[in-house]
């Protein structure tokens, strides 16, 4: 299983802070597609992704036991 963490307003959209999915061998882009299909979160193309607390991009491959965190960037100041 792969653990997925939702940051900030994504937590509200997901209705929970974290979920586990069958995602061994998925790219981050595929994880995003699955989340969009399962939870209806359509805004994941504009968020940053961390895999095991390390910056990742859409091509990064995730493995069993990994933690994927989605973090929406903010611009206010």
């Amino acid at each position: 299983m792969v653990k997925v963490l939702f940051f900030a307003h994504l937590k509200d959209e997901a209705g929970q802070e974290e979920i586990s999915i069958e995602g061994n061998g998925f790219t981050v882009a595929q994880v995003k597609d699955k989340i969009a299909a399962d939870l209806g979160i359509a805004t994941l193309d504009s968020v940053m992704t961390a895999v095991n607390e390390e910056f990742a991009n859409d091509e990064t491959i995730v493995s069993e036991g990994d933690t994927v965190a989605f973090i929406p960037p903010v611009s206010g100041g």
Partner: protein
Amino acid sequence: MRLFRLSAVGDHSNRIGEMIMNERYSRQTLFHPIGDRGQEKIRSKHVLLIGAGALGSANAEFLTRAGIGKLTVVDRDYVEESNLQRQQLYTEKDVRDKLPKAEAAKMHCNDINREVEIEALIMDGTAQSLEPLLEGVSLIIDATDNFETRMVINDLSQKHRIPWIYGACVGSVGMTFTIIPGVTPCLNCLLRSIPIQGMTCDTGGIISPAVQVVVAHQAAEALKILVEDFDAVRQGFTTFDLWRNQYQSMKVGKAKKPDCLSCGDAPTYPFLTPENATKTTVLCGRDTVQVRPPKPRRLQLDKLGNDLNGSGYVVKSNPFLLSVEKEGERMVIFQDGRALIHGTKDMSHAKAMYQRILG
């Protein structure tokens, strides 16, 4: 005899001056990583602070109290009532006087520490207006409210080898990242593949503690850089949410891209070219300014409309555009990111209003 006494008086007053100086920074110099040598370094440095809103005014106050040598504050806006809840340097009198933020920040910082030289620049921060300011600057602090200006800062930082500290906040969320040219990845490495429709304070609101946590991180990083303790500089990209109780520090060591156009092997500094800047045009005879993003965007108008509706704007929409109105100002936003700001001919004001909503 007389001469001797005069010189003794002189020595005495010098000593008092020194004692006051020492007393002012005594708790900071007692902190071992700074010490007297660090304080001297802080005193000899010049910081460029871009933006004097929530992050900017708090950073300005902090640097002034810490005894920075020179501080240049750039801002295009003036103090409004809706700022007072979090922009803690400003007062009701500043609102009544409609003081430009840069000037108000200078005035209050002068009251706090008259030893600090403060330069207030009331202007729009663009590649062309910011680049001439970099001579002698040791550090740039980001206190802007939009990614376009941040990308300009990012390119200027790389081109002139000056560190900068990204900071941003919305709602209860904040994030910060320290960029050291030649060492860390840059903001373009991290964000280039992400189509940004970042939440802004006008769409997501903001609570004051989120500002302060970002500023605390930026200020600590600033001190490290100013005393040249580069080993202590935070390595990761930090994000927190004070309401949802989340905190994450993301490592970025592998994110530096050799082909990055801002910090890679053959940089072109793309955000310093006019083609990548937001364009503003006054529409003839209409008291309206058109604001056009550098590249067409694909805005989610329904989501934007909902966000703005929830934060006090009167929103009307059809499938092609949003019309939003607040405090007598009306703006029409098209799906490609173009907007018409009605009731003004001031291009800088129109751009500020646009970026306050669309980031």
